[in-house]
């Protein structure tokens, strides 16, 4: 335990790949929590964006530290593109749902069950 903390203190200020990954992990976990707990569909979407951003950070970070290629960055671009498309369609769906059910609370919209 002692060595762990000592190492941790030594490691912390030297920013490297792990730091980015940890930020990404935190964002991911928060995103998951947001998706799971929010009633409002738009808030759920925000959670999704967080998760996507977490993934993107990973891509870019690995691209920087993993080797000298840009494949990770390209993947990140595609993720962004996907996110944009997803946001557009998802919001359209939300609007549609709102028109039909007069609510955007996901727990009230469970017609998919059976």
């Amino acid at each position, binding site marked *: 335990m002692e060595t762990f903390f000592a190492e941790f203190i030594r*490691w912390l200020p*030297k920013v*490297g*790949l*792990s*730091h*980015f*990954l940890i*930020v990404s*992990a935190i964002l*991911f*976990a*928060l*995103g*998951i*929590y*947001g998706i*799971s*707990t*929010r*009633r*409002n*569909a*738009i*808030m759920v*979407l*925000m*959670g999704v*964006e*967080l998760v996507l*951003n977490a993934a*993107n*950070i990973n891509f*870019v*970070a690995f*691209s*920087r*530290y993993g080797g*000298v290629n*840009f*494949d990770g*960055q*390209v993947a*990140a671009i*595609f993720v*962004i*593109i*996907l*996110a*944009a498309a997803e*946001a*557009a*369609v998802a919001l*359209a769906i939300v*609007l*549609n749902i*709102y*028109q039909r059910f007069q609510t*955007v609370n996901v*727990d009230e919209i469970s017609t998919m069950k059976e």
Partner: protein
Amino acid sequence: MELFDIAFFVFAFITVVSAFIVVFSKSVIYSAFSLLFTFFGVAALYVLLHADFIAVTQVLIYVGGILVLMLFGVMLTNKIVNVELKTGTLHTIPALLLVSVVAGTLGGLFYSTWKGDVAPPPPPFESTTKTLGEMLMTSYLLPFEIASVLLLVALMGAAMFARRRTKT
């Protein structure tokens, strides 16, 4: 502690804190605006990773596009007059449990695989835009084209969905 490290911690802090606010705020509007900060923070992290093009794209698309879209969504789905922008949360306990499992797993993963940080390669002091552009036009041409078609489809699909139905 160099400037790079300080910058990282600052932006990492901004990102994580605003993300917390996004998730835990009761108000949709608050959440949305915190998300703005998260996005900016992530963009700054990209800059630190020498991914200038991605960073700009992040700002343009997430902040300029997606977030605005979400705000529109918020406004369209809530009666502005009778502003009640608070949203409830659901079964927080199982969610917390789940998230802690996820977090624990990731942490465990770090711990078990960590062998000390490798030194970053010397940063290339040129814009990545040109390289990315070339890659998109050569080896990633097919996914690029598919992505463009996808965007088109999404555009039309979204327009189609969002259209207010005349009486059905």
